[in-house]
């Protein structure tokens, strides 16, 4: 049976994590279709068609789909669902919002944040903030699965799948989009950055995050934060790494002034190399760090920034 990947996009290209979802979908079955729904989303559909492993792209043009309101998108996915064995979405804020609505309308369960496809009906997923791994099997006829992008390689580009136009069904009138307050940043996106520099309560103020920005810019890194730093208002919510925020797995994760609560570790412990800078040598972050420095971050971070510069 065929697999349907539901792709979020910005109108021009599908999100980077769609390439990871396509890889995950390919492990569930050989015939992968990508749904690109939106308003003026022809370019996004083309970017999906270019992913290796995609057999077909469905482009659903409708103004109602422009802002990814679950009330309008879910019925479209449900209408297409009988042709597929699996509905797959990346477990980002779009997938988490839309997929359960689709699953309930289909009267099926959902597998959330799969990190491994064991077989077409069996998946591994983290529970308890990643402190346990559950292997779950679903008997539902249509399997709704969200996948954790960092656990699947991104599908390569260079493909040219056919794009089929399908209509939209308009707005249901339950909800409307007002606007967004998006963080503007030239830095790499947190979940796909090769290096992430992350700050916690130890930074003591939002102003002090400038120190981390300078280091991040030297390294070409994305900028993250612990829940404590976000709750304290140092940085916006979309910086949060952890159980209920973003999950990252970069080559290098530098945790600065972060104690390392299990909820934070859940979001970064799959990073290849972890560096911890903290003045408390008992901080739990050191238990997962490959390299740790005990000391004052306000002294160490500028030193590190200068040292990184001198190649």
């Amino acid at each position, binding site marked *: 049976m065929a697999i349907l990947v539901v792709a979020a996009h910005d109108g021009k290209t599908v999100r980077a994590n769609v390439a990871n979802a396509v890889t995950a979908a390919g492990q569930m079955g050989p015939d992968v279709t990508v749904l690109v729904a939106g308003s003026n989303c022809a370019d996004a559909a083309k970017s999906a068609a270019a992913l290796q492993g995609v057999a077909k792209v469905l482009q659903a043009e409708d103004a109602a789909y422009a802002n990814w309101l679950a009330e309008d998108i879910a019925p479209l996915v449900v209408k297409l669902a009988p042709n597929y064995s699996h509905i797959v979405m990346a477990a980002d804020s779009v997938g988490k919002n839309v997929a359960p609505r689709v699953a309930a309308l289909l009267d099926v369960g959902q597998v959330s944040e799969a990190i491994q496809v064991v077989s077409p009906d069996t998946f591994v997923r983290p529970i308890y903030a990643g402190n346990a791994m559950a292997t779950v099997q679903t008997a539902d006829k249509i399997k709704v699965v969200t996948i954790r992008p960092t656990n699947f390689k991104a599908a390569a580009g260079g493909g040219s799948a056919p794009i089929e136009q399908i209509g939209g069904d308009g707005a249901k009138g339950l909800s409307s989009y007002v606007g967004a307050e998006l963080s503007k940043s030239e830095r790499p996106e947190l979940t796909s950055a090769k290096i992430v520099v992350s700050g916690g309560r130890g930074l003591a103020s939002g102003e002090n995050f400038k120190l981390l920005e300078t280091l991040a810019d030297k390294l070409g890194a994305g900028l993250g934060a612990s829940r404590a730093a976000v709750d304290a208002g140092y940085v916006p*919510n979309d910086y949060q790494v952890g159980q209920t925020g973003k999950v990252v797995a970069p080559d290098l994760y530098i945790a600065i002034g972060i104690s390392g609560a299990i909820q934070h570790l859940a979001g970064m412990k799959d990073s290849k190399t972890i560096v911890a800078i903290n003045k408390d040598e008992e901080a739990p972050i050191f238990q997962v760090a490959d390299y740790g420095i005990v000391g004052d971050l306000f002294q160490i971070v500028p030193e590190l920034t200068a040292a990184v510069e001198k190649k």
Partner: protein
Amino acid sequence: MKVLVAVKRVIDYNVKIRVKADNTGVETANVKMSMNPFDEIAVEEAIRMKEKGAATEIIAFSAGPAQCQETIRTALAMGADRGVLVQTDAELQPLAVAKLLKAVVEKEQPGLVIVGKQAIDDDSNQTGQMLAALLGWSQGTFANKLNVADGTAEVKREVDGGLENIKIKLPAVITTDLRLNEPRYASLPNIMKAKKKPIETLAPEALGVDITPRLKTLKVEEPPKRKAGIKVKTVAELVDKLRNEAGVI
């Protein structure tokens, strides 16, 4: 307007969980249990609505074993008016909970349902969205700010790129994110008062809901452990290790 909040009894967020030796699940015997932290935020939001006059009555719902009474009592001590417990010792998955909630919603006719965006035990993040789907209601997920007036709810949502504002028709389901509010602690007099508030107990069968799990857990295992690495003394040493040992910069 009645507001219904759902509260789940979970292992306390401070407890370091242990996987059972036979790999069937996580050890819950003799472990401290609490209300799911996101559900505390849901209860708090409902109470604030009542304090502002936007809500008339708050019903706290839970589903699970008899001990969920305690979780409902906590909500009552915070300020909810009465409780509904769907009591069962069977395993409950999000779709089943959403169906139980739907049955209670149809009975109670609240104008708004507020639930936590996810429970910190199974980390599913599904129940609110599923309930909205089953009821044909709108959904305001991952709420950072909620304003209810004139049959609509303005919801500021926490999304990948920052914040997003939507306007949804009531009745609706809201799921709470961390920054929506800071839940209060129940005061001693309110804890005493809560003991007198009514809790209705129902059986899933009485609601006509099939709660059969859809996912079968084959095994639960410890995650691969990360080994603690080394402590370095100087920044120069760190940069050297990152460049020449780890090869990441």
